[in-house]
């Protein structure tokens, strides 16, 4: 019973909740994750059978053959039994074939490369210590932290890294693939429902590995086209001259916004005001985007330890400049 309790508790958990729709691998929102869940179901099914058989025999044996008080008899010393041994060799082999065949077909199915498919959208994902860069090579766009994709299209990803190894994972849309140093990995995913899905880094990459989240936003094709147009439109600099000077001299040395791509060692800021989060983890629906920006710029190390961005203090930003920049960025929005 003791052994069954956690199992039953687990089953109850499975039945009652499969986790958040935008996060759980058990609640798939795209064809890739669905195929993977199918395989999981086959394997869980087979394995539950195995566990059940073993547990049943185990419990039966422990009760039936426990030593009674004063029993000093010597049980029959059995060497083995060929028939039984063949049975428990052959049955597992059959079970493994049942699992092996769909495994192989899915391995090859999911490795398809849509790079040359004109209907697929290509996205180059470059991982950086604690943030994600998304480049759309065919559209000439670069953005960060928030992947925007059209629904119903194959999205062909090219994965690489600018520093250490990371792993790109959107659990409810599909499994992960590593971003290797000096190599490019290919993987496709498909989003068939509009929505925002949570993405994660799955490979230990330093202190803020656990905070290296991103969002994948799936929108319909028309909306996606509007987004592409909006992000390509020129961006105005801050009106206030002091803020503008501070922004250009202290932010744009690493960041880029609009067409001003003076640096790309840090996330592209175009449209940051309309993103769902600041830094991937400060949610703009929990606090106003300006507050989140001020919190982030004031001390980025406090939000994401170990990242490359210096504190406002170390950049010698005055309070007025900081506030001005935050307000400017908060109002830098994309309509789509």
């Amino acid at each position, binding site marked *: 019973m*003791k*052994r069954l309790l956690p199992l039953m508790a*687990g089953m109850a958990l499975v039945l009652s909740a*499969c*986790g*958040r729709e935008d996060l*759980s691998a*058990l609640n798939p929102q795209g064809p890739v994750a669905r195929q*993977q*869940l199918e*395989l*999981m179901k086959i*394997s869980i099914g087979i*394995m539950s059978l*195995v*566990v059940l058989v*073993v547990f049943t025999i*185990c419990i039966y044996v422990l009760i039936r*053959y426990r*030593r009674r008080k004063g029993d000093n008899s*010597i*049980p*029959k*010393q*059995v*060497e*083995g*039994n060929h028939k*039984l*041994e063949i049975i*428990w*060799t052959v049955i597992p082999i059959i079970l*493994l074939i049942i699992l092996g065949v769909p*495994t*192989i077909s*899915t*391995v*090859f199915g999911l490795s398809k490369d849509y790079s040359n498919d004109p209907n697929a959208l290509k996205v180059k994902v470059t991982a950086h210590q604690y943030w994600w860069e998304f480049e759309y090579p065919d559209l000439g766009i670069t953005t960060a932290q928030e992947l925007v994709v059209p629904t119903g299209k194959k999205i062909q990803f090219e994965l690489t890294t600018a520093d*250490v190894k990371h*792993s790109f994972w959107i659990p409810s849309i599909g*499994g*992960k*693939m*590593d971003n*290797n*140093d*000096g*190599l490019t990995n290919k993987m496709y995913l498909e989003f068939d429902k509009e929505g925002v899905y*949570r993405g994660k*880094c*799955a*490979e*230990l*990459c*330093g*202190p803020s*590995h*656990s*905070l290296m989240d991103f969002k994948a936003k799936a929108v319909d094709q028309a909306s996606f086209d509007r987004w592409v147009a909006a992000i390509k439109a020129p961006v105005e600099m801050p009106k206030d001259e002091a803020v503008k000077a501070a922004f250009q001299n202290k932010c744009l040395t690493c960041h880029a916004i609009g067409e001003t791509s003076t640096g790309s060692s840090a996330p592209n800021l175009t449209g940051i005001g309309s993103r769902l989060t600041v830094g991937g983890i400060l949610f703009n629906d929990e606090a106003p985007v300006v507050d989140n920006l001020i919190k982030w710029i004031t001390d980025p190390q406090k939000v994401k330890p*170990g990242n490359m961005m210096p504190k406002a203090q170390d950049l010698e930003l005055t309070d007025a400049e900081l506030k001005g920049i935050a307000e400017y960025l908060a109002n830098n929005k994309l309509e789509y």
Partner: protein
Amino acid sequence: MKGDAALAAHAHTVKRYRGLMDWLTTVDHKKIGILYLIAGGLFFLIGGLEAILIRIQLIKPMNNFVSADTFNELITMHGTTMIFLAAMPLLFALMNAVIPLQIGARDVAFPFLNALGFWTFFFGGLLLNISWFTGHVPDAGWTSYVPLASPTYSEGAGVDYYVLGLQIAGIGTLLGGINFMATIINMRAPGMSFMRMPMFTWTIFITSALIVFAFPVLTVGLVALMFDRLFFANFFETAAGGSGVLWEHIFWVFGHPEVYILILPAFGIISEVVSTFSRKRLFGYSSMVFATVLIAFLGFMVWAHHMFTTGLGPVANALFSIATMLIAVPTGIKIFNWLFTLWGGSIRFTAASLFGIGFIPTFVMGGVTGVMLASAPADYQYHDTYFVVAHFHYVIVGGLMFGIFAGMFYWWPKMFGRLLNETLGKITFFTFFIGFHLTFFVQHFLGLLGMPRRVWTYLDGQGLNGMNLISTIGAILMGIATIVMLINIAVTSLKRPNAANDPWEDGRTLEWSIPSPPPEYNFKQIPLVRGYDAWWKEKMEGKKAMTPAEPPGPIHMPSPSILPFVMSVGLFISGFGFIYDKLFLAIGGLAVTLICMLLRSVFDDHGFHIEEHEQEKGVTA
């Protein structure tokens, strides 16, 4: 022996030490076993403490109990310590304590190497753990993937401690593997053919072979990483033509066999315990042997299942998926053989047998998730999540640690002459068993719900809070179980020795035919083995002792030596020299070791003899 001349020939005088010096110089496998037990136990406590700190940090979302940097140090040191400095040494403790006795030998093949193996392990482990006091702690995970562990992204001496500590400790493991392989091949008592060897001896034999083939791979990998870090060699620097993925391959070509190095001995222990406490011969002995060999063989061709998401391509992923699934077949054979050993038996519930029996369902649960992970496309979801954390803790803690606990309770009387307290033992079992399942069962679901592994913290509102809390509570229960075990050990060692030769009364193998603890020379006369389960066979024929295979006479013994200790100290000092770039220390330390090797080579040591009249004088271990 007649005549003064013959007596004189044996009268080498040898310095016998007492107290601390005795332990530093011993080459007796039984004492080395105890040293491994103490050192491995100590590192187990350190690793366990790190685990508790990790779980406290994860008890609630966005917790600030430890910093992100410290957390990464904790997970790295927890993994490295538990695998290399706790699990393996505890296995070596049981190997040393039991194998020579099980095969009817007076010691291992190379007693000096045995001591050297222990001391290099100990000083390697010490070096690694001293990092906590210097403030430079390894923090790139126990797998130490580059580029995170490369000099570019891991400044400071942290990973250097990992590289050099493991390198030195690894020498000890490799020596142990060679030693036990030679011992089991050469030193079996007359009549003990390979197919009459106890199952534990078989698994240690296969494990030793795995060590001999797998550990050199780790050695080479660590040398390359050391050259990258200390001398900028670029083995793993992509920009300079190296490859980071190469490290992954090297690590897992070693790392996967390592998993079987850990679990096969546990299989052996469980076989002995299940068979003894059900009073029955091990069911399907020859298929058990065959399954062990097959698992070891397949274990070398599945390493890339740790790298399904690295991007090796569909052909590699498909092949490694199938190869991995195949391992389930011999493992299944073992599980059913244990169940059918119990079937029809007369099962006695002791702390040892509870751990042995608790092992079976627990390990099956870890095994089936292993098969699930083998399916590559599904693994794209499981990989690097808490699902994997749950899986490997089920096999390593639920498998290996249950096995070690079973073995400790089972062989404790043979090692120390005292039976551990059964009541406290049962409390340990139930607390540990419940705590273990509480901790790790829910982690399967945490992973599937989207929690990556090695995360310092997690955001609120992701549906992960409740299960993380349960997991932490379980971990604390496991901590309590460990404390009860320590109390048990303390209480037991205060008692007088009380164990009979065959304290479980149903012992089947040779170690139960001699006193507990055995005399220094183990067997006064080497026994004659007349079948599988040699001691059981004699008992069933009404005999009170084994038939001797030789007449009584003086027994040749190896001399104690301080050299292994000094050699390891030399390596330890040299390690520091390399880490902190102090060439004189590095060379000086190596010189100490080399001089010891020279001394060992030029001065013959013939050992000494224990004469017949001395054999009864209570020369105890």
